[in-house]
């Protein structure tokens, strides 16, 4: 992972910064310059909420090389309050207990790293919410 490629997405990876279309209100994450719903080009800054619900998920057992040590791990599509969906790992929950419809909350975690000497890449994961 080249540092610039990681660094460029930090506002999204760390703070979930998104944009809201001024014409139709659709929230885009990551931010866009053209609204996918109405084609609008004027946006205001917003942040995604930290709570949501698991829409669907899976447990990865055959992983790409940077994730091999984490196997098995759960990944899900989570719908945050307000409707925006993200793809993220679901952690701190026994794999057999993860359910569609489960309430979750965003937590800051290590996502991957570039070997022992490259940069550490952080970002968002989801944990069970009380």
């Amino acid at each position: 992972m080249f540092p610039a490629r990681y660094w460029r997405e930090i506002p999204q990876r760390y703070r979930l910064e998104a944009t809201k279309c001024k014409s139709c209100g659709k929230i885009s994450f990551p931010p866009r310059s053209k609204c996918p719903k109405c084609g609008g080009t004027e946006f205001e800054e917003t942040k995604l909420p930290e709570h949501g619900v698991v829409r669907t998920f899976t447990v990865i057992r055959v992983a790409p090389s940077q994730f091999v040590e984490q196997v098995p791990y759960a990944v899900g599509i989570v719908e945050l309050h307000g409707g925006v969906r993200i793809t993220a790992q679901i952690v701190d929950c026994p794999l057999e207990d993860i359910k569609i419809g489960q309430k979750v909350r965003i937590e800051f975690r290590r996502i991957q790293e570039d070997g022992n000497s490259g940069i550490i890449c952080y970002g968002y994961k989801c944990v069970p919410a009380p």
Partner: protein
Amino acid sequence: MREVAVLGIGMSEWGELWKKPLRQIFVDAASAAIADAGVDKIDSMYVGCMTSGLFVGQEHLASMLSDYLGVSSIPACRVESACASAGVAFRLGYVEVASGVSDIVLVGGVEKMTDVGGDGATFALATAADQEYEVYHGVTFPGLYAMVANEHMDRFGTTREQLAHVAVKNHKHGSMNPRAQYPFEVTVEGVLKSVLVADPLRILDCSPITDGAAAAVLCPLGLAKKLSKKPLVKITGSGHATDTIALHDRDDITEFAATKRAAEKAYKMAGVGPADIDFAEVHDCFTIAEICVIEALGFAERGKGGEAAESGATALGGPIPINTSGGLKSKGHPVGATGIAQIVELTEQLRGESGKRQVKGAKRGLAQNMGGTGGSTTVHILEVA
């Protein structure tokens, strides 16, 4: 727009072709198609290939493949649309002939996937998804389709066994296909016991890694009537659509809207509906994909794709045979070539050349080819002319 015929078809061997480099694999398929067509020149070519760059470090296929095919100097174009690369190449070739710009166009697809290890293949295939917002988080292709499967199962009651029936059916068909990479049968029990890849998908739910190429020669129907000694096959419908790159941005994760849209265009153009299709080749990269796609194509009601597979409706001999070639599952899936291998199967069936796999009275077939989790899709309808 002129009517376009598929004049010739050809395939290379499909499998782990340790001895053959990418250029040879393509030339094998293309030469076979040109010989089948009986032409001695081609006007232009479109070649689908998802990522020769990541698999073998080679780009600029337009130059390399026209060179090695011995037609250097003609216009050539490498087409990329993840696993729909060949389907899109086919469409572009079709449009070039239909519009009158060229008379004889070679369309092909090739992928050489085995020079990199499993990790390398996983990495290369993952480029079909959103790198920063899906793959960054550790999701794999089986993982994305597994999430589709879990939602389909939760929402429609589709069962694990129904997914397995897709694999069983496709392997049964593939066992009758001399070209198939894995021409052996599997059982439901065998699928359910195979190793988990991404819950609930197991290794026997997943199409394999394959080296291979497929090609076809297109020309105006009028010219085909003069040149061809074989039963004529024409293209009556062509549809192409895209969808969001990230699965999580789809309005409906199990709908495969791009397939629906591309099919609508193809059906409209051909003046037919799903009930008029005799058989189809669809993109079963994973068993769940076939289930969702037959719903999107209108061959099964929404949510009932699993039942269709379990009941035998989509098996050879049933009302709508799907993937008589063995599908991606049994035939193999060199990702950039699959879309045209589907055309090869359709053409052979329509010519009555499919032997044990023949769909009786086949007059009209459909091929659906998609990239990634459905971010791009082509649908083509071929008929006996």
